[in-house]
């Protein structure tokens, strides 16, 4: 059973990706924009889920890496005139480097300590960006003049979201994924069967920071203008957490489902009830967490498991 499912999932995933890839050739405007934003969030929530959903470590400072990504690429682009791909890659690598430096000591801390340490770092770096005006323009904000076309962002984000989801799928089925799951269940027991728990966590953290840095860099570029409080915003982290929780932590599809549904809800409600939509989203999240603690993916797979169990009994 375990060996058959991925094959089918891969085919469905590829079909969906191809359909999405050719879609903007037929429709334009609102839907392309909405999907672009959804892909961006699938990428971010996918990174958060890969690290935190699989290991159980809660990172409250993921905005560190969108912020670092935005500023590294923004500064390289505006001040040194490097081409965008170079700037974006540099942004990813800078995020990765910081993740290694931060993760090395903090990933030995369990639970709330790791969350607090990462949260504090995001706030600290926001202050650095505020004060270091010669580089960042501080609170005035950095304006990026070079920009791709909307449809290019659509494709790039689709590719990145697909890459993050594909990578999660690959990891889930290989050695590294089993290491992550073992850590999530019982770190001491994992070490006792030979898992280098610190290294497995650190590698995952650095890898996800790399992708968050790249996404942050591109998003800053897409928006064209940003301030420290935009890119180091705790709300970015919270949204990644909520989307992962909503979908159900620690599965390949949870960030896809969580990000898609929440972003659509946010878009619709934001247009219709501009004053209340955060309240409504809050209620939806509370309901999901109370009644579907394993998220939508968890609830759905439970229903499927229940409907397929009698059949297995007959065979």
């Amino acid at each position, binding site marked *: *059973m375990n060996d058959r499912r991925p094959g089918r999932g891969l085919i469905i995933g590829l079909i969906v990706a191809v359909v999405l890839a050719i879609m903007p050739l037929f429709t334009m405007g609102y839907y392309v924009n909405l999907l672009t934003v959804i892909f961006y969030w699938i990428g971010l929530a996918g990174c958060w889920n890969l690290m935190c959903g699989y290991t159980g470590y809660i990172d409250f400072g993921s905005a560190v890496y969108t912020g670092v990504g935005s500023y590294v690429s923004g500064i390289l682009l505006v001040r040194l005139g490097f081409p965008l791909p170079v700037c974006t890659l540099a942004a990813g690598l800078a995020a990765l480097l910081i993740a290694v430096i931060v993760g090395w000591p903090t990933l030995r801390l369990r639970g709330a300590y790791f969350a607090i340490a990462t949260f504090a770092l995001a706030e600290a770096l926001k202050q650095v960006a505020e004060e270091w005006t010669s580089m960042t323009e501080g609170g005035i904000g950095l304006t990026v003049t070079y920009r791709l076309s909307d449809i290019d962002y659509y494709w790039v984000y689709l590719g990145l979201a697909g890459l993050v989801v594909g990578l999660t799928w690959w990891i889930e089925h*290989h*050695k590294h994924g*089993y*290491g992550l*799951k*073992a850590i999530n*269940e*019982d770190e*001491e*027991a*994992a*070490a*006792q*069967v*030979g*898992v*280098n*728990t*610190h290294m497995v966590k650190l590698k995952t953290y650095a890898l996800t920071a790399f992708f968050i840095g790249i996404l942050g860099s591109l998003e800053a570029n897409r928006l064209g203008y940003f301030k420290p409080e935009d890119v180091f915003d705790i709300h970015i982290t919270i949204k990644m957490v909520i989307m992962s929780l909503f979908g159900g932590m620690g599965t390949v599809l949870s960030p896809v489902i969580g990000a898609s549904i929440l972003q659509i809800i946010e878009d619709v409600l934001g247009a219709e009830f501009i004053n209340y939509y955060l309240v409504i989203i809050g209620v939806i999240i509370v309901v999901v967490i109370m009644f579907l603690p394993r998220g939508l993916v968890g609830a759905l797979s439970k229903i499927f498991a229940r409907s397929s169990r009698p059949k297995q009994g007959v065979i």
Partner: protein
Amino acid sequence: MSLLIADSIHKNFGALEALSDVSFEIQPGKILGIVGPNGSGKTTLFNVLTGVYKSDGGSVLFEDHQITGLPTHKICRMGLVKTSQIVKPFTRLSVMENVFIGGLYGRGLGLNPARREAMELLNLVGLSEVAHQPSGSITVAMRRRLELARALATGPKIILLDENMAGLTPVEIDAALELLRKINEEGIALVVVEHIMQAVMGISQYVIVLDYGKKIAEGTPEHIVNDQQVIKAFLGDEYV
């Protein structure tokens, strides 16, 4: 050459001396029993040997390598593993995957060899029928055998068994002892910590006795059961 030499191990928890000057050694392929009343330091000793706790003195030599202070996963990969008194399977993974992780990480096997190895080990410990069930759903007796299979998957030269027979029925204990003998015949040394005296005495070639963190006696099983100090520690002064 001794496989494992623990030399004068000390471990304190605050003012409490959990282990004080404990030394022992074990030859390759042998079975060593460790007995002692509750709280005598048996589990602490295992945790120091496998790097879960840092010792406050003394050294551990494994195959002539200093392993004092090494992290648990490195000690495991060198061939020294323990099973826990409180069974801790990865409950959301299947029985097979639990063992499979041991092969992947402990021995560095590839996916397919680790899977084959896991199935063989489950066959050895008699769990092949529940291989694909979630490990949270099997009985305690099965979990104890799963712990053993998971330890074996890491390719150990020595397994430290921390009350691997606790909570089993007499029939299950006999089966467990049979299994341990079979594993030992493969050349794997065992250190058996157990409350059930007959079990330890029956299987061990050499026994050490701990009481309040100190080694109070050592010798062959026949020697130990007649030792005055041991009788005092276990039964009280009036039985001496």
